[in-house]
């Protein structure tokens, strides 16, 4: 009996390959987008974890120089002699690879390195790195491939790295956790070094969490939209098999057995769909990972492997989520079968006709959610609440949409009997179409919201580049002597020269960069502030105040007139807060004189130059000072490079946007096909009364067009609200930036066009089916329907 029933159930799919395809595709898309994002996230996290485990970053306190990035070998020896248990590390970046030289004999046991190929650094001169690093360094040095090494890093004995780069110094000293009880104070032995506590080292995982949260949110959104397809397809499959289920039961199939086999049947299909989805997710992840790696590196400086490995946990999470999603849709149908009287007439539209009361009830719930969202916008704090705000906003709007659409349809224009029937019929179809419309609303509003955020960011970023890259030429020299000669040379020509003086130092307990600037016309005219005293530059120039970037200000709850520590024992007030995008680190800008006084060893080797004749000045500097061509960069090339980095940064978001819109179009197709199959009994009498099949088909297209227009009209304010929340709440919490919001009507119109096109394509199929429906099929309605 089991085989017979299962064969009958599965025969439906065999005879409806299109529905089988859409069912599997719906599940695959939902699972694929979700697991793809998860794969990207887990790959990135694995990279950070590997980096932390291998390099000890974030785990151990370290000794770092107060100024610069070099520690002499003798200081290390002095410390060891004095009883300090420290382990030396030399970091050298070359060809985009970070060489980390460690001393295997003194490294803490928690991070002792031994390669997966069996070598240990103690007995080898080999350099270890992953395949990517090996290929980058091909021709320079031979790298032994080791998969366990984090991306972008080459590890070797410190002696090997020193020989390779002809260095004799160290970069930092790792403090072993177990120290002798008595040891002299650091200031006595190495006054130029400071202890950097482990938690102060840029915690890459924490910094990047917000980025991954963004991706996860996208993954969930895509999964939710994909589930609409699964819901529609399962609904369609059950509606079309309602008659079969009744027949099976009347022929003696027990209800419990039937339900068990329906669950088995669906389970098999969900498994196939989920596996397809995971394969699809792997492909999506493999395609997007290089962009994500670029984004994370661009935003946070963290390295992520550009290659993907297949992990058991996201196979399982993908399959689990597919079963959960399909299970939710299936549970409703199982309940309906259980409640379906054995002898009920086959009324396929019965499920779709929800009462107006129910739609109103759902809308009230939606309005409550929107209220929560508004409340969170006013009083919420923290990233979690920022995402809750967005969640309530999207879900609330989705729940209100069907009711709002019906209300808007009340204002639909037109006279005449056909038009009246058309709008009345459209209103009646709303319950059946509402899920697809919600999917479209979410996809379009997410597109509007995210593209507004990205485009606003772009406008701000371009203006930021104009401020920061005001000098027409940038010259970098290698030696201090050349630097002073260059400055003298330029000043003699009466050019405005802007030396770039910088040191790294913790500010308010966090890693930051301190800049010394020569206050002049350029800074006074170009820089725009988020908040400032009226005489900012005068105060800065006199060394009475500093300027801090937005990240540092917001993270530490500081603003204009608050004080920051910029040197041991010296606190100065903040005269202005400046927007600084694409950089996670805190920055403090002070006057040149004060900077040189505080950090006399710091030397400017880079200069910005204001000139109207870049070509001739470039030639002159090269000829007179023998500065190589590679040391001179003009402003235009930096700008275009920065913009390129920016575009790459948001390539992932753009790709996910397009995918989400595609999935929503697919959801619409499924809903329209579901309804088309059930609507023959409604359309047949209209056809019999004199409307041609072509006209009915055209009316179906017009309906889809009208509904997608309504959805688009609702999606614009929702998308803008989403953009506001992203720019003013999420960005501040996640990245430390608050961005001005700009509007892009042409982009929205284009997006609306795309959404309407997607709907029309989805509606075309059932409309063509209607036009081509043989009269006999329509006549059957009158002979067979009870």
């Amino acid at each position, binding site marked *: *009996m089991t085989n017979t029933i299962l064969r009958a159930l599965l025969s*439906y799919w065999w*005879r409806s390959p299109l529905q089988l395809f859409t069912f599997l595709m719906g599940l695959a898309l939902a699972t694929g987008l979700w697991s793809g994002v998860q794969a990207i996230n887990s790959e990135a996290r694995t990279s950070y974890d590997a980096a932390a485990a291998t390099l000890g970053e974030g785990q151990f306190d370290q000794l770092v120089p107060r100024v610069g990035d070099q520690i002499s070998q003798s200081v290390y020896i002095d410390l060891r002699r004095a009883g300090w248990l420290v382990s030396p590390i030399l970091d050298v970046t070359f060809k985009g690879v970070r060489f980390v030289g460690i001393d295997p004999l003194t490294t803490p046991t928690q991070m002792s390195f031994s390669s997966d190929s069996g070598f240990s650094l103690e007995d080898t001169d080999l350099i270890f790195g992953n395949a990517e690093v090996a290929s980058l360094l091909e021709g320079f040095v031979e790298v032994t491939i080791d998969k366990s090494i984090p991306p972008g890093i080459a590890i070797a004995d410190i002696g090997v790295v020193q020989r390779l780069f002809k260095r004799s110094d160290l970069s930092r000293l790792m403090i072993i956790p177990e120290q002798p009880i008595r040891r002299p104070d650091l200031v006595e032995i190495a006054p130029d070094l400071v202890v950097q506590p482990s938690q102060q080292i840029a915690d890459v995982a924490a910094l990047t969490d917000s980025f991954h949260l963004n991706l996860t949110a996208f993954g969930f959104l895509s999964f939710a939209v994909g589930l609409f397809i699964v819901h529609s397809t399962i609904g369609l499959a059950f509606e079309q098999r309602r008659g079969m289920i009744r027949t099976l039961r009347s*022929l*003696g199939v027990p209800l*419990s057995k039937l339900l068990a086999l329906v669950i088995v049947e669906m389970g098999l299909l969900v498994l196939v769909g989920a596996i397809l989805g995971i394969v699809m997710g792997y492909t999506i992840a493999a395609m997007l990972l290089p962009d994500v790696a670029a984004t994370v590196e661009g935003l946070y400086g963290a390295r992520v492997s550009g290659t993907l490995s297949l992990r058991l946990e996201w196979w399982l999470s993908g399959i689990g989520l597919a079963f959960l999603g399909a299970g939710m849709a299936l549970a409703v149908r199982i309940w309906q079968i259980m409640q379906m009287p054995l002898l009920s007439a086959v009324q396929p539209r019965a499920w779709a006709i929800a009462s107006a009361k129910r739609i109103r009830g759902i809308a009230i719930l939606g309005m409550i959610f929107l209220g929560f969202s508004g409340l969170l916008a006013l009083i919420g704090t923290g990233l979690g609440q920022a995402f809750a705000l967005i969640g309530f906003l999207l879900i609330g709007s989705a729940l209100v949409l069907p009711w709002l659409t019906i209300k808007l349809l009340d204002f639909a224009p037109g006279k005449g009997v056909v038009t009246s029937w058309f709008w009345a019929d459209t209103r009646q179809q709303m319950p059946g179409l509402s899920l697809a419309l919600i999917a479209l609303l979410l996809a379009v509003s997410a597109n509007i919201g995210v593209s507004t955020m990205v485009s606003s960011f772009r406008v701000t970023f371009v203006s930021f580049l104009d401020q920061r890259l005001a000098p027409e030429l940038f010259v970098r020299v290698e030696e201090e002597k050349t630097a002073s000669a260059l400055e003298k040379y330029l000043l003699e020509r009466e050019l405005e020269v802007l030396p770039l003086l910088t040191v790294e130092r913790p500010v308010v307990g966090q890693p930051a960069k301190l800049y010394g600037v020569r206050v002049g016309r350029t800074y006074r005219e170009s820089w725009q502030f988020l908040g400032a005293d009226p005489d900012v530059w005068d105060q800065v120039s006199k060394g009475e105040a500093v300027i801090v970037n937005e990240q540092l200000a917001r993270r530490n709850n500081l603003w204009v007139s608050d004080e920051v520590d910029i040197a041991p024992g010296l606190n100065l007030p903040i005269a202005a807060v400046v927007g600084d995008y694409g950089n996670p680190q805190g920055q403090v800008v002070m006057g040149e004189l004060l900077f040189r006084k505080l950090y006399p060893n710091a030397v400017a080797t880079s200069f910005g130059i204001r000139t109207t004749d870049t070509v001739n000045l470039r030639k002159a500097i090269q000829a007179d000072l023998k500065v190589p061509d590679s040391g001179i960069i003009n402003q235009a090339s930096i700008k275009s490079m920065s913009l390129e980095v920016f575009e790459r940064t948001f390539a992932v978001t753009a790709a996910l946007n397009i995918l989400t819109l595609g999935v929503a179009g697919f959801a619409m197709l499924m809903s329209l096909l579901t309804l088309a199959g059930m609507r023959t009994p409604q359309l047949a009498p209209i056809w019999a009364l004199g409307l041609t099949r072509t006209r009915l088909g055209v009316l179906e297209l017009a309906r889809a067009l009208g509904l997608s227009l309504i959805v688009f009209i609702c999606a614009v304010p929702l998308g803008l609200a989403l953009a506001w929340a992203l720019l003013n709440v999420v960005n501040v919490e996640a990245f430390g930036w608050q961005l001005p919001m700009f509007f892009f009507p042409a982009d929205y119109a284009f997006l609306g066009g795309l959404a309407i096109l997607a709907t029309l394509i989805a509606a075309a199929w059932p409309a063509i089916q209607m036009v081509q429906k043989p009269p006999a099929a329509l006549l059957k309605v009158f002979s067979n329907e*009870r």
Partner: protein
Amino acid sequence: MLLELKDITKSFSGVDGDVEVLRGVSLGLDAGETLALTGESGSGKSTILHISAGLEVPDGGSLHLEGVEINGLGEAERANLRRSEVGIVFQQFNLIPSLTVEANIGFQASLAGRRDKTFESELVEALGLKDQLKKYPELLSGGQQQRVAIARALAVRPKLLLADEPTGNLDESTASAVLTAMLDLVGRTGAALMVVTHSAALAEKMDRRVRLKGGVLL
């Protein structure tokens, strides 16, 4: 007695409250006997048929099939009885659209675990379905679909065959051909037949005829 209905009552809820469809109907059917159940629309004919098949549960009275009280059985036991002892021919045929004619004919017998392909061939031959076996139901005419439904119901060799307006959707000559084949096969299998019909011609061909009016037998 194969089937025995005693004092069966049944009501359905309607817009203006409960509607009493059957008011104490008692009816018996012997093995091999044929019976026509006639009456006006809404008189309760189909309800008696559905109750006899165990598809509907009466509000009152008793129902025995081969001496077994059906009312006392659970859903699964009634389903078991239906698939092995009862063949039903629905007015709308109720074929499984995604299975071929051949698979439809053998379907109930497969469910009951007693498929007999030789007997199915005889049914196919007798009902003139030989050329339709590989087709799907949607490609058949109404008469052909009705014959497939009859073949399916008989292929399980039921003790009781119930038919609801089996010729209601057919033209006169097709109806006559289908009826002749059905009666012939019922005779060969020894099944009892209860037919619900409006057709006087069909009723005439049964061993016995009973008429329902207002929920009671006349």
